[in-house]
């Protein structure tokens, strides 16, 4: 057993309540939280997790090599504007994704009380807590982005020149700026709309920001090039020509990322100064904001317009109504659903722009719809089937278990229909066959996701929705693969190719495997 004395000797030089002491505490918690998220609390999963992480890393490096090798094998030149635009585009993409993630994390830092009450009730300075929390957020935001970007940086170092290693500190700088902006956004939302509405608003803003850059360049691609490729914009000669000259200081972050030390120093110093300034300015009101956030959730977040008359409901109707009510009031889910719907906008736009020309659309639109709605069905069915907050109440009601499950499934299907039906109906007005195929694809994808959630159901709290993927990796993978297979089948059938049968067989195989493993 480790004594307090030996533990304190392990953290020598760290005075209690100091920044370093808090940082150690935060990092320990963050590490354990991450580990338990990845392993779902099972030690046996650690080895599997390491193996999967290695596989993932190797796969991403292979992908990065195949993407970068044609572009960089002849060597990069900062006089090449296409390179500047592409690197800047990737940087902006990282920035928006980090900003989205940071905003989500900052929201949780304010609204999730966990240990905050303990810390704030102690004589420790709240500014230290805030500073360390923000630093920890910056680290986690950087880490998440690095997981995706590191293979590309490594491959660029390998193929081109070691100067690309400077892209790592540039990513840290982007994370610092993203976290700083996220904190300011939170403060502005608090002041503008109050603590009661900030949580939902911040989560929705995070979802919109996360999707906005990708969707934005897709929308430009649709209007300019009539396709969904994001690279179309970044590689278009007219677009590149319209950008500032290669010598312009606009490209400072790109120079920094490719190894220019003066540029790197400017970028890092600016980002660090901005974050320190943010923490310094905003930490004063941290404790008050946390308390106001906590007191809001303590008093009321509904303030419903008074009680409305009761409705006579059958057991199934009551269950469905309850599920819809809870789904509607779940800020996290609303933001996630919004994200799914936002990703449907570009294909919908493409559909609108090509109205009357069914050829080609089905191949793009149908699988996107099938994938997105399949994933949405998976999330919703987890919430309704596993995420039942009052299982004993429902379990002691005079309703059979089958009826309870059906009511929950109906609730999910109704939401999927409400989101998908309008788009399918638009397709039906000019391409009835494609519409029918898409509807069947969505139905199969949603039904598969629901079935997987049924097979892998287990008691959980709705609040643990974020961690649902870790509860069962098999279920998560099966859900993703079955959606993918149904999407492929739909695209092929919509294009009139009987090869779709192969995808159907694969989807069924995925389901069978999941069922056997459940």
């Amino acid at each position: 057993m480790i004594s307090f004395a030996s533990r304190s000797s392990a953290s020598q030089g760290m005075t209690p309540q100091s920044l370093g002491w808090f940082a150690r505490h935060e990092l320990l918690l963050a590490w354990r939280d991450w580990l338990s998220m990845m392993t779902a609390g099972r030690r046996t999963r650690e080895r599997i997790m390491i193996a999967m992480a290695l596989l993932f890393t190797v796969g991403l490096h292979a992908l990065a090599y195949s993407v970068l090798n044609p572009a960089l094998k002849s060597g990069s030149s900062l006089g090449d504007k296409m390179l500047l635009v592409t690197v800047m585009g990737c940087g902006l993409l990282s920035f928006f994704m980090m900003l989205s993630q940071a905003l989500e994390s900052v929201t949780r830092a304010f609204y999730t009380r966990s240990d905050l009450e303990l810390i704030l009730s102690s004589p420790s300075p709240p500014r230290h807590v805030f500073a360390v929390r923000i630093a920890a957020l910056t680290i986690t935001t950087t880490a998440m982005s690095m997981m995706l970007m590191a293979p590309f940086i490594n491959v660029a170092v390998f193929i081109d020149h070691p100067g690309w290693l400077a892209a790592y500190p540039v990513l840290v700088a982007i994370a610092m700026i993203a976290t700083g902006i996220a904190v300011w956004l939170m403060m502005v939302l608090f002041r503008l709309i109050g603590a009661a509405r900030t949580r939902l608003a911040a989560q929705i803003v995070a979802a919109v920001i996360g999707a906005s850059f990708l969707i934005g360049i897709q929308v430009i691609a649709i209007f300019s090039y009539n396709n969904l490729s994001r690279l179309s914009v970044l590689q278009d000669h007219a677009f590149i020509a319209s950008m500032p000259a290669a010598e312009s200081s606009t490209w400072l972050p790109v120079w920094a990322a490719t190894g220019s030390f003066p540029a790197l120093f400017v970028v890092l110093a600016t980002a660090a100064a901005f974050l320190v300034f943010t923490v310094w300015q905003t930490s004063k009101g941290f404790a008050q904001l946390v308390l106001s956030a906590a007191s809001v959730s303590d008093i009321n977040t509904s303030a419903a317009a008074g009680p409305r008359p009761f409705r006579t409901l059958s057991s199934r109707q009551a269950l469905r109504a309850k599920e819809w009510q809870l789904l509607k009031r779940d800020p996290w889910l609303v933001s996630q659903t919004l994200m799914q719907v936002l990703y449907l906008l570009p294909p919908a736009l493409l559909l609108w722009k090509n109205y009357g020309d069914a050829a080609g659309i089905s191949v793009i639109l149908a699988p996107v719809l099938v994938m997105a709605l399949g994933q949405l069905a998976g999330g919703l069915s987890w919430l309704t089937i596993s995420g039942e907050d009052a299982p004993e109440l429902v379990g002691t009601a005079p309703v059979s278990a089958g009826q309870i499950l059906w009511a929950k499934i109906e609730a999910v299907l109704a939401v999927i229909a409400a989101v998908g039906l309008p788009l399918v109906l638009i397709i039906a007005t000019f391409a009835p066959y494609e519409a029918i195929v898409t509807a069947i694809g969505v139905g199969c994808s949603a039904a598969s996701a629901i079935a997987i959630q049924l097979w892998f159901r287990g008691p959980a709290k709705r609040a643990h929705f974020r961690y649902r993927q870790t509860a069962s990796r098999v279920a998560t993978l099966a859900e993703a693969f079955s959606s993918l297979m149904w999407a492929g089948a739909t695209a092929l059938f919509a294009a009139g190719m009987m090869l779709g049968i192969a995808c159907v067989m694969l989807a069924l195989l995925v389901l069978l495997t999941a069922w056997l493993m459940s």
Partner: protein
Amino acid sequence: MTHEFSTGGRSTGGHSTDGQWALEITGLCKSYDRPAVDHLSLNIRRGELYALLGPNGAGKTTTLKMVTGLLQPDSGAISVCGIDALKSPIDAKRVMAWLPDEPLIYDKLTPLEYLEFVAGLWGITAEVAERRAHDLIALLGLKSQASERCQGLSKGMRQKVALAGALIHEPELIILDEPLTGLDAGSARQVKAVLREHVTRGVTIVMTTHILEVAERMADRIGVIANGRLISEGTLEELRAKDSQQAASLEDIFLELVSDEQVAA
């Protein structure tokens, strides 16, 4: 030391045909790694408040969960108001209510919305449900929170919302697991008054509690369970008589019974 006990003139485990019993448990068994409930037999009369006492891990909650259909027994029989709860669980659930120690309610619903949902589950018409909901809300002192989401309510208030949910379909048998834990004195008094009022109207209440004073003051009969077996049962006077300590408190009797059982085990 062995303890003999009566069950109101009937032998423990006997089946009633006259509708006198609200709950009859016969030879109930449930094992996990070890027996949690071990051939338990118990009869509870209609209209009585029965307190089921026992140390932690004695099998109280497991027993009650089997009665409410939340757990499947390995063997034995359960009859709720004359309905075979194992053969016709839906019919049995219709006449009973279960209130766990941790009130499981929906944070995102208001108490009124929660009660509307529970009423829907039990198939109560809107008019009846709404009237009863408002009565219960008033009775339990929840009027000012009736339209606030439950996420902001204190543990005591959540417990009262859950109790209102248990009462809204006017069950004949109410099973409560530690109903007074975490309640302040005022709330506890309110809840006790509501429970007592239901008992006087003929409703049967079975509750577990670690607050022996509550059992001593409220219960018509008390059952003590340890290691999954009923080790003693009766009114407080009957328990005293069995223990040969006329002036003993329930706490003294309980601790002696439990320690004897632990020694025997």
